[in-house]
């Protein structure tokens, strides 16, 4: 349903008094449309974000494995990630559309690109930040290069890596709302529908609020994971 032109008198159809007066928080609307609007959008949002962060993490990790030892490679990857990060999300989506169409692929390429900067930087800096005498001691104990990496460098870099993961996750959940410009999925979609239908406030507040809540919830989960994975950092 698209609003008629001219001065618009809000008309929210057969809804309750709250809906007809375009209230900020119509609980009856939330009850009626949780199942058909908000919940599917939330689930899609979780998938869009999780997929992007997962792929981004894998790519950034592979790059960091090379980058933390080779300065030149590191500078190149850093500059490329910074370049991708700087391109406005809506523009990046549109620039990808001629190649990948109005698809999830387009959305994921853009979302993954935005995760790379933070993830790569934190991984490379974390791995590089391992003190030289610690590495010396590991070599003195007779650890091979792989053993040193897995048992010394990786655990010591873990706090930085997880800090990057937290930032990337929260930002991705936030940017994923822009995906609704390309595909009608995620929590941006109800917001766009509300924009189209005389600015239905409850829907905007509910979808926006859910996106923020999801981001903070994910952040909280990762903090717990961080504590569990690095018990020594609490001492």
């Amino acid at each position: 349903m698209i609003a008629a032109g001219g001065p618009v008198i809000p008309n929210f159809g057969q809804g309750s008094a709250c809906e007809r007066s375009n209230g900020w928080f119509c609980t009856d609307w939330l009850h009626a449309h949780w199942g058909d609007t908000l919940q599917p959008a939330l689930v899609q949002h979780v998938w869009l974000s999780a997929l992007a962060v997962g792929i981004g993490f894998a790519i950034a990790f592979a790059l960091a494995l090379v980058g933390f030892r080779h300065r030149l490679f590191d500078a190149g990857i850093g500059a490329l990630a910074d370049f991708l990060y700087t391109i406005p999300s809506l523009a990046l989506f549109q620039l990808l559309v001629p190649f990948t169409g109005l698809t999830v692929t387009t959305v994921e390429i853009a979302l993954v690109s935005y995760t790379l900067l933070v993830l790569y930087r934190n991984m490379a800096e974390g791995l590089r930040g391992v003190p030289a005498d610690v590495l010396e001691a590991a070599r003195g104990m007779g650890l091979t290069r792989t053993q040193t990496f897995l048992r010394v460098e990786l655990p010591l870099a873990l706090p930085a890596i997880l800090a990057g993961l937290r930032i990337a996750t929260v930002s991705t959940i936030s940017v994923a709302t822009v995906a609704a410009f390309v595909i009608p999925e995620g929590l941006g979609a109800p917001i766009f529908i509300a924009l189209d239908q005389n600015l239905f406030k409850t829907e905007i507040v509910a979808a926006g609020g859910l996106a923020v809540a999801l981001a903070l919830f994910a952040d909280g989960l990762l903090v717990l994971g961080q504590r569990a994975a690095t018990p020594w950092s609490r001492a």
Partner: protein
Amino acid sequence: MTVAEAFTPHTFLDAFGFIHHNASFLLQKTAEHLELSLAALAIALLLALPLGLWLGHRHRGLFLAVSVSSVGRALPSVALIAFGLTIFGVGFWNNTAALVVLAIPPILTNAYFAVDGVDADVVEAARGMGLSEWQILRRIELPLGLPLVVAGIRIAAIFVIATATIAAVAGGGGLGEIIVDQASYGLAGVIAGSLCVSALALLAALLLSLTLRALTPRQGPVS
């Protein structure tokens, strides 16, 4: 929205044609975009910079600085723009308000940590020399923390330019207006607008990076 146009890599060539034929129009839209972004950035700087610097100087408000940054990162720009629209209606302020809200967290948090992280011994020495608190902030902490402050402004500028694009759905004008209106400008126009706004963001980031480099003290022996 017309979906008739086929998406092919060829549209990129059409986009350059569009830029060539509509240069003055695109320039005007870029100026609009810049105006909205700079207004929001200026307001955010006025609000967040003094607060962040002062809190950092007093070493107070760590919780505020950290939570502002994580909540700020979680705020979805689309929701913020829509929210601004419901409160202020269509106009300059709905979008400016949303952009200011997005720009404040990185500026505030970076300013806080920039000043908070200055070597305590240096500050102590300055205090011992009889400098007032204001002089310490102005002449010791601010110069030493400046790279981090500028880094925060750089992040804010990137956010603001990106979100000003999305603001077009709420009558924000600027380059986003072309990008969200494929029916009027065609796919070539959409791509052209996207290229222009990307160039704008990259230029702004580059400018602030160069500023950052100029402000960062050289490592190594001083000649």
